[in-house]
């Protein structure tokens, strides 16, 4: 079990945004988090990453509480939004910086990035631009690649398919599937039901902060989700 969430609650001025009684994630799971805007997906991610203090409850990562600890940073990497990028660096500088935090040498980083050559589609490396000058889709690619570069055991991505072109979406899906065979635990949120049901082994549906459904993906899952959202 890599993550265990108990009695987790987050309230803002009396309004409950996240309210999860119990949730466990076993190592190697690929979990898709779906739900309309305001369901509490991003807030949940932020609490798992110790960016927001829960109002009550606890999140355990490898049986040790996340809040106030650093141990989880060794094996957790994430990309939620552009706020995770250092936008005045070139992509290379950013990758090298992130790599250096994990004691990777420049050559290791560059070698590792080669496997993303087709994911980048020639648009990221050696462009002599700062990250802030890239389009949103390309910034997204940089953030995802930087998260993968850290060779995580737990990967958290918030709407990774958003702003990506179709080719890259397909390549990302393929890559996420290989991560599954490498036993990387992955948590992604998405508004694209086709993609999540394709990639994920388990789907969690949230609404107004609560978990409504927790499904193991099978042939009927997509239809079930579509039925739920078209109500």
């Amino acid at each position, binding site marked *: 079990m890599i993550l265990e969430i108990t009695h987790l609650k987050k309230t803002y001025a009396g309004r409950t945004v996240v309210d999860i009684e119990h949730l466990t994630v076993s190592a190697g799971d690929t979990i898709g988090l779906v739900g309309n805007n305001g369901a509490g997906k991003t807030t949940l991610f932020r609490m798992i*990453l110790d960016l927001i203090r829960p109002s009550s409850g606890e999140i355990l990562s490898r049986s040790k509480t996340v809040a*106030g600890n650093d141990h989880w*940073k060794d094996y*957790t990497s994430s990309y939620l939004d552009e706020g*995770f990028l250092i936008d005045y660096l070139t992509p290379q500088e950013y990758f090298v910086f992130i790599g*250096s*935090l994990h004691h990777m040498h420049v050559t290791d980083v560059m070698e590792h990035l080669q496997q993303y050559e087709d994911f980048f589609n020639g648009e990221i490396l050696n462009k002599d631009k700062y990250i802030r*000058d890239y389009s949103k889709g390309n910034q997204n690619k940089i953030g995802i690649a930087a998260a993968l570069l850290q060779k995580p055991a737990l990967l958290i991505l918030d709407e990774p398919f958003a702003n990506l072109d179709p080719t890259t979406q397909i390549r990302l899906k393929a890559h996420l599937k290989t991560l599954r065979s490498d036993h990387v635990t992955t948590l992604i949120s998405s508004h694209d039901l086709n993609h999540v049901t394709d990639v994920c082994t388990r789907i969690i549906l949230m609404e107004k902060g609560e978990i409504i459904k927790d499904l193991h993906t099978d042939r009927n899952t997509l239809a079930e989700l579509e039925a739920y959202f078209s109500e």
Partner: protein
Amino acid sequence: MEMLIEKLLPGKNVILVFNGMILYYFAIDFLARLQLQELPTLAVVPYLHLNIPKRKLVTFLNVRAAFTAFNVLPLFIFFPFCILHISESYGPLVCIMYLLSIFSLMVFNNYAALYFKRITAENTKAVLSGLIFLITIALLEYLNLFSIASLSDRIFEYISIQPAAGLVFVCMAALMFFINDRYLKGNLYIEELQSDVQKRSASDYPFLDRFGEAGALAALEIKLILRNKRPRATVMKGLIFIFYGLLFYKQKMLENNDFTMMLFAAVFMTGNVTILYGQFMFGWQSAEFDGLLVSKISIKSFIKAKFLMLTMASTALTLIVSLYGLISWKILLIQFAAYLYSIGVSTVIVLYFATKNYKYIDLSKGASLNWQGVGATSLLMSIPLLLTPFIIYTPIALLSNPYWALGCIALTGIAGCLTRNFWIDFLVAAFDKRKYKIASGFRERS
């Protein structure tokens, strides 16, 4: 106004002084505009794709540019005097020409400053050359080689004899307006209105490698300063303050060993990056703060990196201002004491107050008259920081002698450096306590 002139410069011809003032005013006005007047270009971006003729957009920009305090001030300063005095002495025609000339100068300055800013947008060279220009003019005036005042006087005296000459100013203003107008019309594209895209290349600071993770973070921060407008301008401002010594270091005080005022200058000169840049610490990184928190950075090295950065800045500044040592060796003593205080004490105070700063800062905006991120804490911070040296200095200087007092300031600084590990732990605890609040504050971007 004539009362003021008579009081300040008794026995001089009022109109002569007035004439001398005009060009002087507009020279300063021009530099002030370069620094402070906002370019209204971006205001037009939301309308570019709508069905509005280009001509209209350009006119909108031009008209909008006229609405600034710089264009109101001269009307209040010069017009009443002209109407009362010039018409009395020279008749209404000359008075009208005077008004027209002054008005034209104002319009000329308005559009010249904007044009200048447009063609050299994002160019630090322009600011520097403007500064050098200002210093040269001041020097020439001081050495009586060239005087704007007398030039101005001659020009306006000529107008009083030959009123039609005032039309030259009108033509100048009209010309400037049209140059600006044509430039805008030809360059009304978002791409061209914004800063030019330079080739961005990666850079490295290998000398920081020996500091490990803290070194990598300090290198990151150096890039932040060099590659973003507001932090760069803030640090540049700090460099201007190294001229404080010219104002505060006085021969007489040095002879009397009266270091109080000089100590203030020294503390400010050696520590101004710490104060000016440090007051927004963490806020500079507000855009990527979430990313920093989740990445594998220990807060300890994060804080250490800040110390490293501020120490390097103070060291560099101290080396530069050591040139004042040519005036007297006593200055070197004062500055060295101030330097030790800056790196030992100021840094801790600044970083502590930084943990109470929750305001997002947009790095791409200019630094002058920009109050984003300025809160009560950042202003409060400078009080203990600038006051402490005097609390140490004054009683000891009175009881024994000023040199001992300087020594005590230096000792406080050394004590701060020696106990740095304690302060790092203290700051880490303060940071951890408030990190959620800081992070959520930085997420609110307004």
